């Protein structure tokens, strides 16, 4: 998969060199920590990705889309669950696979220097696939909701004229994708991203 991603991303690179940009493509490692529903999942998602695309609206404002994914987990050691006359003993592996697609706007405080801080907001759709594995069995609940993600960070270019740079940032995710089956409310997480950004003009 790594090669596939690399090939896909390298295809986005424009061989031209220039200082000002009006489009960006970014691919970042997206690490998230759940801050809600921690009875269900409490481990950080260290294998998530964030793919972003932006077009210039004006000199400092850029709009586009973000696609994100993350996987949260929790292992609950073997114990007995009692419900009425029924009792079950097992250990549980709780998973939440999250995907987000947002329309995002970022305000860059400057667009001509090596260090370009930005702040933004993404609003869109969230899909979470809740899975609970126990032995060879699993139960599942899929949920859609609204995703709101305020975010901030910076782009750092090695040179002012570079057509690529590093992107890093932090964000907060609010997803209304609840689960009735697992008795879970809205999903919140905080995260950080670090990756590469390609600049085009």
């Amino acid at each position, binding site marked *: 998969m790594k090669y596939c991603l690399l090939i896909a991303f390298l*295809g986005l690179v424009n061989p031209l060199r220039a200082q000002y940009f009006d489009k960006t493509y970014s691919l970042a490692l997206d690490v998230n920590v759940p801050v809600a529903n921690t009875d269900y999942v409490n481990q950080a998602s260290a294998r998530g990705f964030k793919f972003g695309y932006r077009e210039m609206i004006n000199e400092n404002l850029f709009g586009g889309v973000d696609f994100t994914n993350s996987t949260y987990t929790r292992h609950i050691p073997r114990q007995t669950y009692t*419900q009425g006359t029924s009792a079950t003993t097992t250990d549980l592996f709780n998973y939440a696979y999250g995907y987000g697609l947002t329309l995002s706007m970022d305000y860059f405080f400057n667009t001509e220097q090596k260090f370009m801080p930005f702040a933004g907001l993404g609003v869109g759709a969230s899909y979470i696939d809740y899975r609970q594995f126990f032995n*060879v069995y699993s*139960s599942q609940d899929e949920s859609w909701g609204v995703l709101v993600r305020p975010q901030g960070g910076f782009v750092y270019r090695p040179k002012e004229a570079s057509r690529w740079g590093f992107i890093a940032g932090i964000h907060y995710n609010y997803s209304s994708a609840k689960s009735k089956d697992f*008795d879970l409310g809205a999903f919140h997480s905080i995260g950080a991203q670090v990756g590469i950004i390609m600049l085009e003009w």
Partner: protein
Amino acid sequence: MRPLIILIGLGCIVNGCQPVPDAEELNQDLVVQTDYDGSVDFGAYATYTLALDTLGLISNSTSDTLQLGKYAVDVTTRIKANMDARGYTFVDKNQNPDLGVVAFIVSDFSVYQTISYPGYGGGYYSPYYGYYYPRVNTYASNSAALILQLVDLNKKTAQNQFKLIWACYIGDIASSIDPFQKSVEAVDQAFVQSPTIGK
């Protein structure tokens, strides 16, 4: 060309980012689920019978109806030990026992979907469907469950069947790392989580 490249990249991300638990960890212990008839006074029974050294077998992959050998011996011996420890007296089936203990293996049948799942927060009540449980999937290609049942041999249902008063599902023994030992442990656990059984 560029949108196609982007879509390929996104497809790789989606397909490659649904990790699942390690199979060895998942199959470390068997799932033990029990349920009993809450209207029954288990202390009112005195004797039971059990087919020692033999398990029933229901399978899609064989026409055999009995499971013999060490596994059957280990399991039935442990069932008997637990029943004895709960104060019941083992008698031959011709000696008019109060309870019958039935033990059998169901292989390659989707029996687990019919029972409630351990749940996280349990099921919930739906005004349309009554008490509702999330769906349970079995993702093993060939799974097997050890099923134990207690039946009241003094009562029959309207369908002329003995009344089922306790049931236990133990699985998956087909993918267990140590089906012999883990099954014996699971039988013990079935009784541990069923304190209502006993005189």
